[in-house]
């Protein structure tokens, strides 16, 4: 979105700023788009802006004069001006800036000089101007001429502007002879007549011979005329009227069908002309025709001299032509949709209307009304335009805008770094958004993983030294290590955290999923073991990918096969548990590391178990309760993953007992076996396992 505003102009040219400002709508601060004038105060606004404002207040925003929407009038001259100015703007701006820069370097020349010179530039007389001006100013002209040729071959100096300004066909040849002021109205007239001329030609099929000719002509008029005039030599451009007058004379001798042609071609513009100035030029040109009008009569409709023989045929054609243009005009001026009092319109009526305009009828009543209202507003605004958009286009636009409003842009989402999971979403939707999030942040994740890996390496090296000193000391070193890691960037913790999400989502769904997860964790363990033994951690992913479901046979290869077994089981559960907590920590980051990112999983898993390890210190049951506490106490666990040690004191005192009690109750309810003994036994076992595992964990983490 290229924003332009009046301050683009150098401060040394305040008048240009004023011009720029005057061509802007004071509601939206953009250049006027379909300018509408309020006749009573002559303030101009964009059609859409002022119509929208009229819904709030029926008055002119600038002077507070009372107006109704029906009073607004088109201001096509202003439209044309804006169009031209916007096209020319970059050039003028460039010139002004270079000039300004030069001015600042050298001696300052007055603004007025520049302005006058600029006007001259505009009117296509820069060459004259260059020769007249002092050397310094001629540099400006030099700039101008340097800019110009890049656009089009220089026929006349003003051409590049015009070529850009309009896709219209007004010929450039007149430019040298007619002053721009005189030129512009006729130009617009011709432009509009072209429009009117070509359009009806498409519609008509049932017409008589003469009319067919007329069509041919009108089509010629639309397409060929301009090319002929542009290709003609400079002499031909002396004045268009002359050429016009010449053609009828030469046609005098030719058969009837041909004779109809020139006259009709002249009727086309005059018949469709709306402004008086345009209609003056055509007859004026033909009236000056000397001699040739002896056996000619002037057509009362179009004022063109026609051979008396054919005056009736011509008149018929002429009248038909004007009639048709009238109807066309009516079609062109699209009818506005009248305003409605929504309270009185039943749902059915609204839906009918919306269907009629191809608007979707989804949503509640107020949404429908809002949509239809917006559509009517835009439709009515488009009615003012010279080439109004079709209703379908507008309908599409309205719906697009609505979508944009209801869905915040993707870019914003990415910036906020949020995963979009909402209430009432199905699992599939959640999964989908998760995947989207993952793919969107793949780079960041891989970066984080690399960081985490590097850190892991360092930790491992350290721990290998301290391990020999015994478990207590290891604890301490672990703590210190963790303290280190926790101080590292939050990003890395973010990468650690999301592990849970994977587990979580699946865990909520099915027990089987948890089993799958178990597999994963086991793999993980294997992975961890391998690097520890082999003292190389980079091969983790490879190892993981090679691994299959039968992990334990490998795992038991270690010294403590049984312990491993129990541990791994326990770990699975704890991991899933803790990961669940983590999920609660931050719903946003929840799903981030799903299966799609294997590396991420691998790395994160390694870090996760640190929280159970903490738990183990506090004894068997506390480990559980603490986990639960953390589950409830999201705020504490929101902190980074390696940090739980530091959080521990906070967690413990917070009603672990009640949580435990509740867990127990649930357990009892759910347990199929129903025996309290096995329950407590299992929890005891858990505690034991946790203890053992935590030691192992520490090793692994290192």
């Amino acid at each position, binding site marked *: 979105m290229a924003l332009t505003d009046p301050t683009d102009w150098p401060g040394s040219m305040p008048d240009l700023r004023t011009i720029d400002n005057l061509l802007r709508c004071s*509601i939206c601060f953009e250049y006027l788009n379909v300018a509408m004038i309020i006749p009573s105060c002559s303030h101009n606004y964009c059609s859409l802006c002022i119509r929208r404002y009229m819904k709030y207040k029926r008055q002119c925003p600038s002077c507070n004069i009372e107006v109704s929407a029906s009073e607004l009038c088109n201001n096509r001259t202003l439209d044309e001006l804006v169009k031209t100015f916007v096209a020319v703007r970059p050039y003028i701006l460039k010139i002004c800036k270079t000039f300004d820069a030069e001015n600042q370097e050298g001696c300052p020349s007055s603004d007025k000089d520049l302005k006058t010179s600029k006007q001259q530039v505009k009117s296509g007389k820069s060459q004259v101007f260059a020769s007249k001006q002092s050397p310094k100013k001629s540099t400006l002209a030099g700039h101008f001429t340097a800019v110009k040729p890049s656009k089009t071959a220089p026929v006349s100096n003003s051409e590049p502007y015009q070529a850009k300004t309009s896709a219209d066909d007004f010929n450039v040849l007149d430019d040298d002879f007619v002053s721009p002021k005189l030129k512009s109205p006729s130009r617009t007239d011709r432009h509009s007549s072209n429009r009117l001329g070509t359009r009806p030609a498409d519609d008509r099929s049932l017409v008589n011979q003469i009319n067919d000719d007329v069509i041919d002509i009108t089509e010629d008029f639309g397409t060929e005329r301009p090319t002929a005039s542009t290709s003609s030599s400079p002499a031909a451009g002396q004045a268009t009227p002359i050429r016009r007058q010449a053609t009828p004379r030469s046609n005098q001798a030719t058969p009837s069908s041909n004779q109809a042609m020139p006259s009709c071609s002249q009727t086309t513009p005059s018949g469709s002309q709306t402004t008086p100035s345009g209609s003056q030029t055509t007859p004026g040109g033909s009236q000056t025709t000397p001699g040739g009008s002896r056996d000619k009569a002037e057509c009362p409709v179009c004022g063109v001299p026609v051979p008396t023989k054919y005056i009736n045929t011509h008149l018929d054609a002429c009248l038909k032509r004007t009639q048709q243009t009238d109807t066309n005009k009516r079609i062109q001026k699209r009818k506005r949709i009248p305003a409605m009092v929504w309270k009185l319109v039943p749902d059915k009526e609204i839906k009918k209307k919306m269907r009629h305009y191809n608007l979707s009828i989804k949503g509640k009543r107020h949404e429908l009304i809002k949509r239809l209202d917006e559509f009517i507003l835009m439709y009515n605004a488009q009615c003012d335009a010279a080439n109004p958009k079709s209703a379908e286009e507008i309908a599409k636009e309205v719906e697009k805008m609505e979508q944009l409003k209801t869905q915040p842009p993707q870019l914003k989402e990415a910036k906020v770094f949020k995963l979009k999971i909402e209430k009432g979403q199905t699992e599939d939707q959640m999964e989908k958004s998760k995947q989207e999030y993952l793919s969107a942040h793949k780079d960041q994740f891989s970066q984080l993983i690399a960081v985490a890996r590097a850190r892991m390496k360092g930790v491992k090296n350290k721990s290998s030294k301290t391990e020999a000193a015994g478990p207590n000391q290891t604890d301490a070193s672990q703590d210190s290590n963790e303290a280190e890691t926790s101080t590292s960037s939050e990003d890395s913790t973010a990468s650690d955290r999301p592990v849970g999400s994977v587990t979580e989502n699946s865990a*909520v769904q099915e027990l089987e999923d948890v*089993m799958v997860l178990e597999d994963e964790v086991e793999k993980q363990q294997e992975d961890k073991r391998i690097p520890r033994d082999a003292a190389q951690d980079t091969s983790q992913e490879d190892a993981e990918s090679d691994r299959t479901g039968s992990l334990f046979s490998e795992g038991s290869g270690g010294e403590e096969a049984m312990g491993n*077994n129990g541990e791994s089981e326990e770990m699975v559960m704890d991991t899933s548990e803790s990961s669940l907590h983590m999920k609660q920590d931050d719903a946003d980051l929840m799903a981030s590391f799903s299966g799609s990112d294997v590396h991420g999983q691998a790395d994160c898993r390694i870090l996760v178990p640190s929280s159970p390890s903490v738990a183990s210190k506090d004894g068997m049951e506390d480990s559980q309760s603490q986990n639960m506490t953390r589950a409830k106490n999201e705020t504490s666990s929101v902190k980074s993953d390696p940090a739980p040690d530091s959080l521990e004191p906070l967690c413990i005192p917070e009603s672990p007992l009640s949580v435990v009690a509740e867990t127990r109750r649930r357990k009892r309810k759910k347990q199929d076996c129903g025996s309290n003994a096995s329950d407590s036994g299992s929890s005891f076992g858990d505690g034991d396992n946790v203890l053992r595992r935590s030691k192992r964990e520490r090793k692994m983490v290192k």
Partner: protein
Amino acid sequence: MLMRRSGLPPCDQCVYVLICVICAASSVVEEVTRSCQISPHFYTTITMAGAALKRLMTEYKQLTLNPPEGIVAGPLNEDNFFEWEATISGPEGTCFEGGVFEAQILFPPDYPLNPPKMKFKSEMFHPNIYADGRVCISILHAPGDDPMGYESSAERWSPVQSVEKILLSVVSMLAEPNDESGANVDASKMWRDEREKFNQIAEGIVRKSLGLPPAPS
């Protein structure tokens, strides 16, 4: 699978996992509901209208390129153009001279059609500023709602006004309080009857805004 691998009896294990899942699930639901309580900004982002955003961007550009004297204003962050922060320095030659006051400007989603809201974050004592910092000047009132019933339509908000004009009006309001429409009655009374005292309080506020200790009396 579970049975085969675990040393524990199968049901035990299953139940354990199940319980974990259930416990967690309940708190998950809580958490999800909690996180769904969307911040107020979220709504502004949703309803961000294209026209309003474009116009705010233009105004921001103009304000940064040609800032009026003693005024700095801009959006708090580029994600949300509908919440601005403005810093206004007290106009010279008034009791607020030297002070630097922070204010928040909140734009409605249909911005140029409806006026923004302005609120001073720094403590203020002024006849036209409510105790909570809200600014009460006619340019911020849409024509139609006239809290005091005296403003002419001409001086109220219309889309042709701009942030710059609002801020300039606020500056001139600081310089010349309008004691007829007292938003802060105490301040307006004091302004009218005990100008000395008012000036003293104003000085205190200026010092406060600069983080200086109160002047020794």
